[in-house]
């Protein structure tokens, strides 16, 4: 890139005068820019970041939602969450099981599908369209579709296995040892499609000469993938990891619907469900719910912060 003369001052910013370009803005231009940025930023901050900070603050208080009857209670919400709330540890571990399952099954499978679909083959558009369909449907509808499959009396699975008669029922969504896995299958149906499409876009943007060179050097397909393609796809791999982790933490709709349209069923507790349960209803426990939200926030930040650093590092030295 040949730097234009106008670009030069801007690239060396370290505490100097603003670039010439910026100085050329008229007062009216500055006002227009301020409004263009100010209004959306205000909306984003008020509706997203103020509640995030408020979650943190409220987690140290006790509030039943009536009036301004808010008391500072320090870490009490957290101690009772960790020691005295039976649903918390199952929920936390289910979120991690969810993540682990996603990382081991649908994510690699989606990448594998993308890799295969990237070979120049016939009917690839049909395969892609069919496999990608679940990604277009809302998670709530995905839940209903799978409920029809898992229904103990009338569902496809039990009808196929002959386990839809009294005495031999398999209660896929009711049995606390089974239901998380049943829901995870439905979630993977969608997640593999998502990963497939992200990875395929990455593969299409890659220089095919890389893989060709490796295969000319005598590498087999697996070696080519592991040693050449996978490392070259690092940016996409990071996106996929972030998407997978965030989706695992956000999981809500599917479990809500498949768990019978109310709060957490035994075996299906998730942090997101516990949070939502504690704010609505007869006696909301706002401080307590916020403490669960903070746990979710902290886990999310473990992913979000490195991602931001990695993504924007280049720009800081630009």
């Amino acid at each position, binding site marked *: 890139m040949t730097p234009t003369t106008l670009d030069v001052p801007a690239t060396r910013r370290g505490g100097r005068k603003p670039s010439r370009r910026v100085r050329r803005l008229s007062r009216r231009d500055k006002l227009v820019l301020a409004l263009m940025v100010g209004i959306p930023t205000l909306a984003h901050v008020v*509706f997203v970041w103020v509640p995030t900070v408020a979650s943190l603050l409220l987690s140290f208080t006790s509030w039943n939602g009536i009036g301004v009857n808010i008391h500072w209670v320090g870490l009490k919400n957290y101690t009772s969450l960790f020691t005295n709330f039976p649903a918390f540890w199952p929920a936390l571990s289910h979120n991690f099981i969810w993540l682990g399952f996603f990382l081991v099954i649908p994510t690699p499978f989606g990448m594998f599908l993308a890799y295969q679909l990237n070979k120049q083959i016939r009917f690839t558009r049909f395969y892609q369209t069919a496999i990608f369909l679940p990604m*277009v449907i809302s998670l709530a509808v995905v839940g209903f579709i799978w409920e*029809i499959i898992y229904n103990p009396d009338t569902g496809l699975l039990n009808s196929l296995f002959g386990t839809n008669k009294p005495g031999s029922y398999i209660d896929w969504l009711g049995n606390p040892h089974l239901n998380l896995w049943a829901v995870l299958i439905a979630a993977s149906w969608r997640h593999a499609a998502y990963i497939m499409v992200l990875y395929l876009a990455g593969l299409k943007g890659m220089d095919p000469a890389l893989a060709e060179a490796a295969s000319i050097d005598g590498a087999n397909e697996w070696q080519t993938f592991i040693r050449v393609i996978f490392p070259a796809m690092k940016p996409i791999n990071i996106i996929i990891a972030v998407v997978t982790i965030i989706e695992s933490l956000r999981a809500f709709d599917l479990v809500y619907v498949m768990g019978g349209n109310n709060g957490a069923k035994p075996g299906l507790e998730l942090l997101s469900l516990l949070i939502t349960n504690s704010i609505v209803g007869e006696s909301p426990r706002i401080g307590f719910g916020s403490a669960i939200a903070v746990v979710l926030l902290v886990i999310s930040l473990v992913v*979000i912060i490195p991602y931001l650093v990695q993504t*924007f590092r280049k720009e800081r030295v630009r």
Partner: protein
Amino acid sequence: MTTSQVAVPRTSWAEPERVIVPRKHRVRPARVILHVFLMLTAIVWLVPLLWAVYTSLRSYADTSTHGYLSIAHALTFQNFSNAWSQSGLPLYFWNSLLITVPAVLLTLVFSSFVAFFVARFDFRINLALLMLFTAGNLLPPQVIITPLYRLYLLIPLPDFMNPGADVLYDSYWGVIAIHVAFQAGFCTFVFSNYMRTIPKEITEAALVDGASVWRQFWQIVLPLCRPAFAALATLESIWIYNDFFWALVLFSTGSKRPITSALANLQGQYFTNQNLIAAGALMTAIPTLIVYLLLQRQFISGLTLGANKG
């Protein structure tokens, strides 16, 4: 490396298949295995949907006497027309429209504004701003729902905007607002990647000619961003229409809910058997399926524009 590998909608996803001229006419066994594998996967992926379609097309009498796993004696659209008329589905579809259209438009306007600022100028806060929006879009919605719910109960609305409640809670405005605020994060990220690929010289030439900032945005940058607009409009329409969580928590009046969230209440109340549930669920999915099949390329590129940032 100076080429920023960004935001170019270069997925050849929906392009017509390239004609492949095989060098040898010998059928390679590896290719056959690959096709068998892909065909099986595609079929397995379609089974849940097809099962729902099959169930929805059978009468309850048929399935209750012969079981659900049986050959249908007759196929009928009766479940669809029952679900449509008995449960008031048209109202919920209308609610979805009332929320989705303004939310998508406002999201695109807001995020293109911010992206223009971030991508085309070199102010010191730009990077921080872009990080703020990007991080906001990655937060799980449940992290903010508790204070947001309380905030909505506190923010007053004039009576004509939300008759009977006078607050942002339980209003279309509130649900539209959170969609816009939340989705603006993703769209700003995508737009700013896209706008950076436009050479600086183009707007600088306009600047030398005395064009105002607004004219640069409106007459130069925006027209060049049409592909990004098309992609994000498609993607965001589907996402916002598909939203379940915000509408579930931020509405208390059932008849105000959009179709995706209303479905949960309709089950049990009106959709009393599997056939009706299947019909209701499929009808909810139909608008998104139509949009996807018509605008597949836009949908996919919207999804991958954000990911292609190196």
